[in-house]
């Protein structure tokens, strides 16, 4: 392990909340806010004086009005909820199926040999390429979307769990065996926790892939509520401001979920496990 830092004894750092924290928050805020303000101002100037019709490039105000209207009507919340429920369903079911399969591939040579070719083949087929097929099978229904997401999540989770289990530090397995963990207890007490950081980063990756696919999928299939669905229908109805507002929401929701929920979960395991790895 090259990452061992000798001589370093981590002690809880007591931050000086009185000054440095507020200062830090302020600089963080400035770094985030300034580019946003610049973009918004440039946008507004271009919308007003750029000579582009408002139907193609609405003003900032129009986009925010559309956003407020969507929120007031409730469609905004219904769309976010619709998209999220689909995502959660597939990620949960996909993780439940993919994790054990990936673990089996990692632990048993026979499973690995049997599954490595199919897995790599399927990983080379993008989930979106399966749309014609799932539409034939399930029609323009919810299942056409869910099956694709499920496919993508299972494969991503499998691949990450597999490599995660394979790269467990062998000395941990030896230590586990030496201190009385065998068979299933070795699995639960050593192998699973040792592979947990890779498994969790697999979930994070699966989430972000599924998110991308889902937005597209909702455009292809009429599902009633969903962010992709909203974007698509706004175009059909020529509501350009709603298209922009929808894109804004897709970006914000995706960003918040990825950064706040998934990255935090991954950072917790990475810190604990002491892997010196820089999170992107």
């Amino acid at each position: 392990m090259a990452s061992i830092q000798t001589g370093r004894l981590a002690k809880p750092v007591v931050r000086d909340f009185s000054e440095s924290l507020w200062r830090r928050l302020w600089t963080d805020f400035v770094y985030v806010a300034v580019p946003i303000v610049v973009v918004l101002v440039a946008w507004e100037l271009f919308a007003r004086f750029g000579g582009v019709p408002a139907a193609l490039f609405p003003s900032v105000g129009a986009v925010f009005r559309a956003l407020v209207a969507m929120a007031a009507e409730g469609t905004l919340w219904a769309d976010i909820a619709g998209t999220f429920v689909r995502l959660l369903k597939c990620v949960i079911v996909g993780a439940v199926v993919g994790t054990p399969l990936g673990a089996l591939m990692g632990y048993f040579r026979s499973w690995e040999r049997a599954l490595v070719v199919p897995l790599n083949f399927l990983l080379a087929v993008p989930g979106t390429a399966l749309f014609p097929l799932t539409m034939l099978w399930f029609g323009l229904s919810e299942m056409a979307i869910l099956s694709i997401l499920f496919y993508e999540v299972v494969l991503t989770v499998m691949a990450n769990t597999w490599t995660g289990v394979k790269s467990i530090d062998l000395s941990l397995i030896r230590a586990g065996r030496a201190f009385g963990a065998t068979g299933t207890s070795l699995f639960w007490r050593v192998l699973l926790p040792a592979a947990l950081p890779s498994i969790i980063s697999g979930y994070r990756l699966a989430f972000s892939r599924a998110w991308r696919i889902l937005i597209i999928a909702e455009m292809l299939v009429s599902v009633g509520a969903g962010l992709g669905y909203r974007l698509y229908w706004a175009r059909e109805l020529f509501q350009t401001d709603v298209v922009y507002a929808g894109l804004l929401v897709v970006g914000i929701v995706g960003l918040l979920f990825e950064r706040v929920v998934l990255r935090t979960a991954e950072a917790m395991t990475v810190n604990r496990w002491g892997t010196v790895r820089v999170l992107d």
Partner: protein
Amino acid sequence: MGELRVDNLAKRYGARRGHGGGAGLRVFDDLSFSIADGEFVSIIGPSGCGKTTVLNLVAGLDAPSGGRIMVDGKAVDRPGLDRGIVFQEFALFPWLTVSENVAFGLKSMGVPAQERARKASHFVDLVGLTQFAGYYPNQLSGGMRQRVGLGRALAIDPSVLLMDEPFGALDAQTRVAMQNALADIWLETRKTVLFITHDIRESIFLSDRVIVLAGRPSQIVLDLRIDIPRPRNRHDAKFQDHEATLELAISGDASARAG
């Protein structure tokens, strides 16, 4: 109780038919030694002499090609809680705290939670980590990590303590500090110890006997009793005599091979 007997132990690697005469690598062909209850024995030798292989075989983490290993009259054929191992690379479980790491083997033995916590805290104290019981391994320095490794091995109250170059990954100063700590702990616990090292002074400082392994396939070229009273002083005159003897035993082999 803790008596270790190794009889006619042999280990060969990669013996393949039609490959270099079919012999593969013969680490050793016929190795015998024993360690009495409460005795601290080191095995030293040049790198590649198979000293870590001996430990892995005794640990049951590797299977011998011949011979047998007995701990308290019971044959070794797999890892077991009658032997506590301290690994060179520490091999602590990073998701467990110091005391949970120390308690790992106790949990395998089915010790009830309350008793486990009590014992774990005793051994955390013994290795000098009282204030760090709730820390995770990656928050500790190298020396402290190996203290956890030692506590984990002692906690299961093994018949034999097996230590595989336990201080090899530490810097020189920490290594000396850890040798002192181990000498103190050993005086307190009087465990039977098989200690692997390539550091001559370390072996003299700690051991009742030092076994020198050399040659290829390797054999025991010297079994030296260290009769310096404890606690030991590294500047004792006898210390230097032993050092010279051991150096000669190791280099004598090296020149024999060169000639």
